[in-house]
């Protein structure tokens, strides 16, 4: 029983990590209707930036979150403006997929060129310190990640429902043409949204970097999980992504123990395929995956 509780706690903490990575992805999909196949590579780049900043300036990785959020907002906005936006009205919707897939490949290999294939570890004082809560042993960094994920979900929810800009963002997602007729500059909304989605990854990188060593292909590993989480929760749903992340976190933790460590991903990819095929709207999604 103790083991089970520990596993559940580990699963939820892992869920926090998955949520941090998935929120930006689902936001971008929900609004801009583009699946950013380079999302994982944003994280990878972010982790390298954290690694470099902590090394050069002797900063705590958490402090780097501030410049990273700004940097990634700009990066995301620029990618939307210069790569995605010209393709939004393309006759073949596949070209957007190609563009982000190409971007992803280029980024992975650029990292390979610059850093090589070796793992780089970012050190963060106190991040790996154990914290005991009622017999359950967790790491400080895990708790920070979980709390940040909860905070981020709440913040984005409030932003989307309570502010003029947030409402405009939702309006664009639901009916782009009508939003323009209300006076909303749709392209600007897309740029801002992509920026926010990328900024979420910036924040995530600062939290993930001191927990996991970075390598050029780490993004692929994380982004596949993020796809599972996002589809499970419902493409475009922020709360859904959080719920999906918790479920996948638990599945990962429990199946890794009770089934086999090397089959836990098979389990959640199986869930992923089942959801895609039988319920493409996911658990909380409003979008229609099969259309």
């Amino acid at each position, binding site marked *: 029983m103790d083991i089970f509780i520990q596993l559940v706690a580990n699963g939820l903490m892992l869920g926090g990590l998955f949520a941090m990575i998935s929120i930006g992805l689902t936001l971008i999909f929900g609004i801009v209707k583009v699946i950013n196949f380079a999302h994982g590579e944003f994280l990878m780049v972010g982790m390298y930036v954290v690694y470099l900043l902590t090394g050069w300036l002797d900063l705590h990785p958490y402090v780097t979150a501030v410049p990273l959020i700004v940097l990634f907002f700009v990066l995301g906005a620029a990618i939307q403006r210069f790569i995605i936006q010209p393709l939004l009205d393309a006759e073949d919707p596949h070209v957007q997929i190609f563009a982000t897939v190409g971007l992803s490949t280029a980024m992975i290999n650029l990292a390979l060129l610059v850093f090589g294939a070796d793992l780089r570890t970012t050190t963060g004082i106190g991040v790996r310190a154990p914290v005991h809560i009622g017999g359950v042993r967790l790491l400080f960094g895990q708790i920070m990640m979980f709390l940040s994920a909860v905070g981020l979900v709440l913040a984005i929810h409030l932003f989307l429902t309570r502010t003029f800009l947030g409402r405009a963002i939702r309006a664009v997602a639901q009916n782009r043409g009508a*939003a323009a*007729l209300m006076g909303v*500059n749709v392209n600007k909304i897309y740029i801002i949204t992509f920026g926010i989605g990328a900024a979420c990854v910036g924040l995530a990188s600062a939290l993930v970097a001191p927990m996991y060593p970075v390598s050029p292909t780490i993004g692929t590993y994380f982004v596949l999980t993020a796809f599972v989480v996002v589809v499970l929760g419902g493409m475009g749903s922020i709360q859904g992504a959080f719920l999906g992340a918790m479920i996948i976190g638990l599945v990962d933790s429990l199946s890794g123990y009770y089934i086999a460590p090397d089959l836990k991903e098979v389990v959640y990819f199986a869930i992923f395929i089942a959801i895609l095929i039988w319920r493409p709207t996911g658990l909380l999604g409003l979008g229609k995956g099969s259309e």
Partner: protein
Amino acid sequence: MLLVDDVSAGYGEVTVLHGISIDVQPGEVVTIVGANGAGKTTLLRTIAGLIRPRSGTITFEGRDIGHLAAHDTVDLGVTLVPEARQLFPFMTVRDNLYLGAFRKDARDGMEKRLGEVLELFPRVRERLDQLANSLSGGEQQMVAIARGLMANPRLMMFDEPSLGLAPMIVKQVFEVIEEIVGMGKTVLLVEQNVFQTLSIADRGYVLENGAVVLADTGAALLKNDHVRRAYLGI
């Protein structure tokens, strides 16, 4: 107030409008009638800035708006209540109305205007916190018109507001439009419901194949032989 001069427009390689000229004076109700595919909706979308004209000019209160994007056109006080309502389906009616007031000039006094608009639409007031897609077709049309009013436009354009509604609801829609006219708004109305539309219009244009074939007062068009044969079925 609005001057459309020799405008051609279309989608992709296809030209839908061929050199259209119309004008709307302040306080007028002008209507555009024509068969499906004649280009009525394209004309409104072109004025609204959703489609760029290929040639010709569109001026509103003396300013060239032909090359403005839709959101900039709205900022000048031109609002289109689009065909098929086009509400934001997963937002509450209230949020839909707030979005109507997104344009810069309309944000101040938004709450006050909400009160005024709801006076016109008592049914909408009852539904404020429901999701827009849970409303009936008639209610959705009312919300769409209310949302248009929230922008406090000087020129209000309607695209087929009676589309797919039961005859009784159609009647209510026309009553609302007459009230809006009574508020002093200038109205440009596109409708398939030719008889009712021409009855409330000061002037009308008949569009066929993307060109204006007739222009006259509403009353005169109602008596016009061509209109009666082609659109009234008599």
